[in-house]
């Protein structure tokens, strides 16, 4: 017979454990909920039109619907989507190639891992400035190209910053996000990938078959999760497109900032509504990334 007291004791211990965990997490939770949650609550309130300073107090979804129906918003939305998607795609493709190439080196040369960790610590703004110095018409590459006789003058260098195709912004994101995605993929390949590749080799899979049938399915959850995080970040980031983007059209975060900081206080709710929409998309991407990771763990793929 099972001892009912023992079961009760175990339940009591688990409840006590959960209780002490909640107490330990409380200070951090208070900061997060108070600062982030409070800000979000105030944001939603202002987005819904509660701005007493500007004489607005009635709550409605007017500003959200006005934002959605504004052609400039849709243009900005398209541009932001384009930059986030292309940056993520290019970074993901290069990262897959880099991770595969590095997976055999990392065991022998720990320094490779370190080299890839360094860019993670560099702020986006610093990289944006570096890109500006490198590829702007007055930048290093333009001068080198002119000195080498490839172009007549530095000003003839193709426009790669504040340009129509947002190349400077995309280059910045790609440069910054490749190490992040690569390290995520390397962790997977180091854990299970190499052994599975050995199995594949003895089961007669050639190099392409191993990539198609083993590497891609193995890294897909990590690649998906990392790419979604990168997408969410690039979709919501402000400083790089503000520095390297055109004045029109502008990305959504810049659009939101412009509206929020407009001297016309009545434009502020629309800026906030845009910010809330960006936050919603970012949250959706993070939740999807989490779901992908959890599904992969359930299947036994280590992340």
């Amino acid at each position: 017979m099972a001892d009912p007291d023992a079961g009760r004791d175990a339940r009591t211990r688990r409840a006590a454990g959960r209780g002490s965990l909640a107490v330990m997490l409380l200070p951090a939770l208070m900061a997060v909920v108070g600062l982030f949650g409070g800000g979000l609550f105030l944001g939603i309130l202002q987005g819904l039109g509660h701005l007493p300073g500007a004489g607005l107090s009635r709550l409605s979804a007017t500003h959200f619907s006005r934002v959605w129906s504004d052609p400039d918003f849709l243009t900005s939305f398209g541009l932001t989507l384009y930059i986030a998607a292309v940056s993520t795609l290019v970074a993901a493709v290069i990262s897959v190639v880099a991770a595969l190439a590095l997976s055999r080196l990392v065991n022998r040369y720990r320094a490779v891992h370190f080299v890839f960790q360094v860019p993670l610590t560099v702020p986006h703004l610093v990289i944006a400035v570096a890109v500006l110095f490198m590829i702007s018409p007055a930048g290093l590459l333009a001068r080198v190209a002119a000195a080498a006789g490839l172009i007549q003058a530095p000003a003839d260098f193709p426009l790669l910053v504040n340009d129509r195709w947002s190349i400077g912004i995309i280059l910045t994101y790609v440069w910054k996000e490749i190490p992040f995605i690569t390290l995520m993929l390397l962790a997977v390949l180091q854990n299970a990938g190499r052994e599975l590749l050995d199995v594949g080799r003895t089961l007669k899979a050639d190099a392409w078959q191993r990539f198609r049938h083993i590497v891609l399915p193995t890294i897909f959850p990590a690649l998906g999760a990392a790419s979604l995080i990168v997408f969410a970040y690039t979709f919501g980031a402000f400083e790089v497109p503000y520095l390297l983007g055109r004045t029109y059209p502008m990305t959504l975060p810049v659009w939101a900032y412009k509206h929020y900081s407009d001297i016309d206080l009545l434009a502020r709710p629309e800026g906030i509504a845009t910010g809330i929409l960006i936050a919603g998309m970012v949250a959706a991407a993070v939740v999807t990334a989490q779901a992908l990771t959890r599904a992969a763990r359930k299947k036994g793929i280590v992340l």
Partner: protein
Amino acid sequence: MGALSLKNLTIHYGRQPVVADFDLDIRDGEMVSLLGPSGAGKTTILKVVAGLLAPTRGAILIDGQAVTDLPPEKRDAVMIFQKPLLFPFMNVQQNIAFGLKMRGDSGDRRARAVAHILALTRLDGLGRRKVHELSGGQQQRVALARALVLEPAILLMDEPLSNLDANLRQEMRELILGIQSELGITTLFVTHDQAEALMMSQRVALLLEGRLRQVGSPRELYHRPADPDVARFFGGDNFIQGRMRDGVFETDFGPFPVEAVSGNGHRRTATIRPEDIQLVTDTGDQPDHLPGTVKRTRFEGMATRAWVSCPSGELVVLTPRSGLSAGQAVQLRLPPEKIRIFPD
């Protein structure tokens, strides 16, 4: 099916030699165990045969054809690893069909082969299961099925049972032995477990510190070890020093008449297995018996291991006799025909 020949294999990790001058011939359809302690180089040899590692020098031949420079996918050899290493994103039948698909077999053919091998490995009804829903034993059976379905000339098994519990291990041994004898696949089976090597294979190759020390039938290695290290690996505890003189091996434990062994007058080392020593508790004076005192005992189920102190040294005895206790006076008989004298 195929014969496997490993000629003068030498393998380095960096500058460190791991395996040196390794030679082994496995006949078509034969099952050979590559036995040795951890770090002896067994897995390294298996990986070299599979093509996952390159030897520093030497040659690998399958059916007389050199495959040393061929990549793994071009060799007619399949390896089963210590862990099942199933593809987690595929179900059981997709895992099993993987090699067939890579080889370009048609869907119908794959389905037939998978159904046959599922039955052979007692996995009927599990084809659509996800691999993380299987037990450890079932996972290892899927790994076995995935290798066997390719009908390779050579099957390489790297301690495939070491992660299973004792009961499952026994069950898997029977399964592997049954399938191997039914299909007649030439098999090189790596293990560090001497009992497993003895019961699984037709021949055993013992590898110590990267060198092949003895190849032979399980009985040969067990009863006629080539040297003291081999004897020690197979549980030999009793080593006796002595000198050969006119057909007699003279030792501190007494003279033992032996069959002709060369080296008259030379010092030699001999061994006798613990279970070959006869222990009697009757202390009556027997001319060919050694008096001794039990120092300690250990119950081992079917037998009791006793450490017996004799005037000439200590001997370890494995006896079915129960009720021995420390301090007890006993007599030991060392049958001369059971004494193995090592050549120079």
